[in-house]
């Protein structure tokens, strides 16, 4: 069954379609949720986040385009997991990894979309394995040890590739007019 067929059945309220989607993407969703929330939260919180994501899919199936289901699930999982941390007044993971951009704070919301688009372009232009390492760490919140295990690399290689990816991103943003300094500890 194609993804379009599954979404079509889902929109008709067919729970078997949701069952199939959970079977296919459940591990993906729960892993992203765990990457973001553990620690400081518990496995039960991961289950709650993942359940909320699939319930959101059930209630909003008409908003998901065929061919974009996995991307939708990834984005909603990131947001749901981060909201879970916020509800417990906990810090976000990877908050210590940031750039300082020379733009007024008042313009932050306006520029965020553009900066995300530029970042996607920059990351897409990275060679492998920098590309996958960057996405795994900063989009999927995978820890460096896990990335190393998943990609068959050693941890120091992962860390150095991450550093290289950050440098290239900084260069890309700077070339496009954003004066960018590395603010990370």
């Amino acid at each position, binding site marked *: 069954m194609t993804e379009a*067929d599954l979404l079509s059945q889902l929109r008709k*309220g*067919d*729970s*078997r379609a*949701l*069952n199939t989607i*959970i*079977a296919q993407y*459940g*591990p*993906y969703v*729960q*892993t*992203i949720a765990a990457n973001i929330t553990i620690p400081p939260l518990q*496995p039960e919180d*991961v*289950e709650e986040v*993942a*359940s909320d994501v*699939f*319930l959101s899919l*059930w209630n909003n199936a008409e908003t998901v385009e065929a061919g974009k289901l*996995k*991307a939708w699930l*990834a*984005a909603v999982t*990131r947001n749901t997991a981060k909201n879970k941390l916020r509800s417990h007044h906990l810090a*976000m*993971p*990877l*908050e210590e*990894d*940031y*750039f*300082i*951009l*020379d733009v*007024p*704070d008042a*313009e932050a919301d306006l*520029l*965020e979309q553009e*900066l*995300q*688009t530029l*970042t*996607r372009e920059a*990351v897409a232009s990275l060679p492998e394995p920098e*590309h*996958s390492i*960057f*996405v795994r760490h*900063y*989009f*999927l919140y*995978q820890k460096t040890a896990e990335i190393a295990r998943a990609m068959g690399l050693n941890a120091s290689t992962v860390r150095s590739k991450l550093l290289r990816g*950050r440098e290239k*991103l900084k260069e890309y943003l700077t070339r496009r007019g954003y004066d960018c300094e590395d*603010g990370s500890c």
Partner: protein
Amino acid sequence: MKMVLADLAGKCFDENIELGEYDEMTERIRRRVLARIMNDGRRKRYTARRIRGITLIAAVLISLLTGTAYALGLFRMNKNHIPEDVTVHGEWIERDEDGNITEIQDMRYPDTNLTFTFECDELPHKVQFKPGWVPMDGFGFGEDGWYHYYGNDGDSSEAQIPYKIEIFYAKPGFQLVMMYESEILEESSWGEYEVTELVNHNPVWGDDNYVLLFSPDQGYMIRVGGGLDMETMEKIAKNLEVRTLDEQIQYDPDYNIGVLNVGRG
């Protein structure tokens, strides 16, 4: 302006990166989500209201016809055969806290050949069942081993839903739709019940078998349905124990159509 790299990377999705493996947590998530959507779907249809001064009702055994049946009045179920070119439709009305309509959903079913409607002289009383035999354990909604919904969703590797047992109540003006093409195999009587056995041809997931037990005395229908064979459905149905409660069902007039098929949240 401080920009966290993880936020900057908010659009850096990569289709090719896979994570995780199906494990016990995934299975718990699957069951939890399916249970939640079933429960949420049912809450839209019925709201129970307690009645003062009605005594408790004795249990009724389907297979032995012992105990006392509580006669409320006459209920009638009509099986309506729908022609191929006809679309069955109804409405779900959503309201805010003040009762103002916020949304009217036009529910349309173009691919059904069978619906059920009812005539009632009374409001039915709430009933619960206890499965005396099931082919494999399931989960349900109820209390102390008595359920209004019980079933098994199967596992993650199969689309088949083995069996589901659920209670539907007679309601005037309400259409209960059996989506897709249904073929009635047998109509009979088991004690107080009018029994309909049918196979439903789901074009996506395959055939499901159903045993529908309608009580004209008490105005409820028990649906036993799923992907297992008809003999198994019959055995489940014949081993149900049913009791009637003092609570009377109050219908929500904002929902005048529903679906009888298994797997519908």
